[in-house]
């Protein structure tokens, strides 16, 4: 259904954000490429969520520039463009009133006819293995189901970039595998992923680039060493706790 590979290459630079006296982000920079996954790590309150929300166009930075390959523009000028191509998933995704189908329906273009809508929803349910809960109330889903419905809902929106805030927190082993499997599939389809997590081990198969957010700045750990997630976890532990 969605097999085209996007040619997304977006650079965010000079991202700054201050909350009161605290400088959350200070000259942070990130480069997002289609079909690649960036894992964003950092301790609680380091600004991971704020950073993702700025990329998604949901939070206004104090300063920031976006380069989509057509030139470097101020974040404000690109806000609408970001909203059109980026989907952000909260740590605890929000489900609207109604069943899973109506939640998936929300992402679809209003111009689509009812028949096309149903067809796309059916394919999406099949893609994510959610057929058995299609008519369940979205408000009563378990953590793993909730995350997979949210990913599927985002997938129906055809995002170029998908941002996930702690997507496997408090999940059992099986739910975690199924969620990561969906993300792998999205990556193969060409969607750029940025995942924030304090536990990189879960994303070993998914991640191409490990970034650490500390004192408002992003550092690229992979550029200095040939790491494994275990090394990285040790590194994070040493630098954050």
């Amino acid at each position, binding site marked *: 259904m969605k097999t085209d590979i996007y040619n997304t290459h977006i650079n965010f630079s000079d991202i700054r954000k201050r909350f009161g006296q605290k400088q959350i982000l200070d000259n942070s920079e990130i480069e997002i490429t289609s079909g690649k996954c960036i894992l964003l790590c950092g301790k609680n309150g380091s600004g991971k969520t704020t950073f993702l929300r700025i990329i998604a166009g949901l939070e206004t930075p104090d300063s920031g520039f976006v380069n989509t390959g057509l030139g470097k523009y101020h974040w404000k000028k690109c806000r609408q463009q970001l909203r*059109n191509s980026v989907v952000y998933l*909260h740590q605890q995704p929000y489900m*609207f009133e109604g069943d899973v189908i109506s939640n998936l329906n*929300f992402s679809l273009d209003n111009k689509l006819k009812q028949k096309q809508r149903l067809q796309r929803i059916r394919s999406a349910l099949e893609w994510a293995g959610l057929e058995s809960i299609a008519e369940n109330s979205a408000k009563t889903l378990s953590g793993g189901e909730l995350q997979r419905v949210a990913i599927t809902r985002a997938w129906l929106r055809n995002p170029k970039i998908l941002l996930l805030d702690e997507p496997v927190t408090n999940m059992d082993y099986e739910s975690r595998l199924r969620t990561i499997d969906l993300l792998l599939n999205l990556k193969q389809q060409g969607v750029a992923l940025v995942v924030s997590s304090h536990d990189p081990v879960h994303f070993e198969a998914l991640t191409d680039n490990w970034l650490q957010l500390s004192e408002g700045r992003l550092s690229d750990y992979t550029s200095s060493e040939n790491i494994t997630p275990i090394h990285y976890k040790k590194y994070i532990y040493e630098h954050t706790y």
Partner: protein
Amino acid sequence: MDDSTSITLEAIHLLFSGDTELWAIIGVSFQVSTTAILISVPPALIIAFILAYADFPGRRLLISIFNTLLAVPAVVIGLTFYLLLSRQGILGDWRLLFTQSAMVMGQAALSFPILVAMGHAAFQAIDKRAWETARTLGANRIRAFYTVMKEARFGLLAALFSAYGRIIAEVGASMMLGGNILNYTRNIPTAIALETSKGEFSQGIALGLVLIILAFTLNTFLQYFQGKGHLSN
């Protein structure tokens, strides 16, 4: 049969016999109050939403002002609009005093703070993620607003019914701005006040019954929409 029973029976007979004067009064009430609520709902809900979701200087002060306005008596609203619409008033040239339009203005002003304050509480109860999820999934501002309204519908319906219940039963503003003119500005509460002062209790009771039936219908409707009426598991 004692006096009160016979008056009540007479009131019921009056109500169901299709008395034209009585039904004209009921018609004026519903027409004026429905128009007033339709005028005030859209701006009130937008303000309620902005107060709940946006962050701007003076936001808390505005919330306090709307909460304070809840306590303003109908007769004070009536007096304010009377002064505005009287010949010497700023809006005197509009010649609206003692018309249904004046009553609509007064009732809209009365319902506005109720809708804002209760609407704000209803929106505040909905997670901010609802708005953000709608926006990140491609909804424009109008669709996202509609989505959040849908999520907050029970609280918003309660606000709507409370505001409607308040204005259809208020007497002060309607009396001052409408003038209680038969078949034109006489509505249920002003008619009850007039008939009772004349000692004609049956029409007053009949009209009172209409208000009670209305209140019961609105509350039943709200209960039906709210579903179970207790905490979910």
